[in-house]
């Protein structure tokens, strides 16, 4: 059986993708896990490139690798994660989890790997005409037929924004920042008031009671 170059590429990308994804969950060091995730994204982008989805592939690299993962890397480096505590029980749960997972993969493989999703049962994709632009087609669909889900996705992002603010924004208890608006508007009358007090009459000093008090004050000074 001869394989053309594209098929070879497909298997290379897929194999590296699966291995990288496995390393993401097994790596001891969280920084390594993030880097393996970056590798997984690169290979997924390669697979999409093989499917002629150039725009999506580039977006995956730019958005996920360029923005999200770099941010994630920063967060992971900043946080003091006790990896041993996180991995507690990993090996004791592994046998059962692996058995259940393998059974599920096997069963799903029986259905998906069979003739139902084979190349024969699906019509071959029409070859794109010359000058066909994937990006342009995506853009047109996104803002015409798919404008409704597109807007919904933006509302979801807005909710994520509001949720992130409400869950993390907190007024520090020892915050000494002033509100400038209030500072400017303050009037003298707000800050001090003149209280009329009766003149104090000095009480006659009783000698044996006043002596220790005076001594205390002296020692403080």
């Amino acid at each position, binding site marked *: 059986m001869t394989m053309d170059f594209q098929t070879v590429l497909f298997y290379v990308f897929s194999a590296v993708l699966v291995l990288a994804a496995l390393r993401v969950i097994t790596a001891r060091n969280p920084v390594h896990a993030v880097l393996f995730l970056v590798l997984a994204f690169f290979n997924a982008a390669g697979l999409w490139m093989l499917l002629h989805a150039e725009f999506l592939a580039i977006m995956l690299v730019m958005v996920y690798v360029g923005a999200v993962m770099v941010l994630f890397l920063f967060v992971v480096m900043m946080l003091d994660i006790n990896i041993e505590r996180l991995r507690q029980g990993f090996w004791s749960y592994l046998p059962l989890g692996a058995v259940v997972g393998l059974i599920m993969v096997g069963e*799903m493989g029986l*259905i*998906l790997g069979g003739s*139902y*999703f084979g190349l024969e*049962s699906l019509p071959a994709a029409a070859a794109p005409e010359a000058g066909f632009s994937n990006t342009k087609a995506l853009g*047109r669909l996104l803002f*015409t*037929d*798919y*404008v*409704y*889900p597109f807007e*919904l*996705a933006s*509302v*979801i992002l*807005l*909710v*994520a924004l*509001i*949720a992130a*603010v*409400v*869950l993390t924004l*907190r007024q520090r208890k020892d915050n000494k920042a002033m509100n400038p608006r209030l500072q400017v508007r303050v009037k003298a009358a707000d800050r001090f008031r003149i209280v009329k007090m009766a003149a104090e009459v000095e009480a006659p000093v009783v000698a044996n009671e006043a002596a220790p008090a005076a001594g205390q004050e002296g020692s403080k000074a």
Partner: protein
Amino acid sequence: MLTNFVLPNLAPAYPELFLLAMACVILLVDVIGGVACRTLVAALSLVTLLICAVITAGTATGETTMTFANMFVDDAFADLLKMLVYGAVAIVIVYSRRYLRDRGLDKAEYYLLLLFSTLGMMVMISANHFLALYLGLELMSLSIYAMVAMDRESARSTEAAMKYFILGSLASGLLLYGLSMLYGATRTLEISGVLQALAMNQSNEIILGFGLVFVVAGFAFKLGVVPFHMWVPDVYHGATTPMTLFISTAPKIATFAMVLRLMVFGTIPLAPLWQPMLMIMAVLSIIVGNLAAIAQTNIKRMLAYSGISHMGFMLLALSTGVVHGHAAYALAAYSSALYYVVAYVMMSLASFGVLLLMSRAGYDVEMLEDLKGLNQRSPWYAAMMMFVMFSMAGIPFFVGFFAKFSVLLSVIGAEFYIVAVIAVAFSLVGAFYYLRVVKNMYFDAPSDAAPIVATMDARLLLSLNGLAIAGFGLFPGGLMSLCQEALARSLY
């Protein structure tokens, strides 16, 4: 370039658009007004829901209209369910306002997230496309996760939010995977298109069945039915009571709409495949929910398990629509399921409403003992709670009785006699823990003598809610025919 582009007809989606615009306005009001505008924000949210209801009622023609490239459907079913969602969310706002204010939790974001969650529900209810359905579900769920986690001081709330978030994401993943299989088999994402593709009978049944398993597992998680119910008691218990009130009401209506859109509107030709799945989950939920509720001492956990058994009853009705390949009973079965959801939401609102009414600053009604002697403290609200408990137990003549009765009628109509017997038997088991609450309220001495403080609007609404439970039990015909009418117009 865009010669063939036609601007979508926005008219059917006016309520959604209005809600979205108002949510943004309220966001700005909060930013500009600050803490002083808390009452204004709550009032604006209520007014928004009211105007949405007016728009929905005003544009309800009973006809089915599609827009946004057939992704959005506006039919009688959607209109009815949206009205119910507005009502439920408005009642949640009124009930929970004082509780939140007492604890300093009445941030504007609470109302905003409620409104965004409502928007997600409306999108789900009106979805005619897997993508819209999924995005609506995520919009609803994401807002709820954030709302559960909003009480940051409480470790229990954070834990509940974490559990809800992780299991909810898993469920979304399962649902999405199942939907992708349905897409692979029918080559369309449009729900009405799936129905047409299935009618042509060219799709591979094994792939369809495989996809359906994941779809059913996904929405079973969201409904909280056995064996996907683990999160329900923990989240109900851990979340603050207003959140529990919200989670147990409006999202159930939206999830019901999602189930009906996916199963009945989309894949009814596959009913022989999914009906047994629903029935197994329904019977298990009725058994486990009712048995586990007996052992609870925390009333929120008890109501969570009772909610599981109620959702089981609802699924039972859905699983009896198609008998021997004939859909003769379908309308009766699906409208009894709808009626059951409406009844459950009504009862759930009133039960958590009473808990909120009895709570005050620094004191939460959580345990069954806290209800002791409610009759001596407030005979009227004790009566309301008694109505709810009798109704949940299925004692005639309350709304819950008629709901259970119509579900059982459709089960017997489909000739599942053993299932009907199990459902009745475990409803009787359930009566034990509902009546225990009534016994606590009427025959035990109060452990706490503080007077009940509540705002006038909450008192009034709770009374109406309790009376509605009794009223719809005495005159169930109107609501039932409304459910039937809405489904008949939308399905055929």
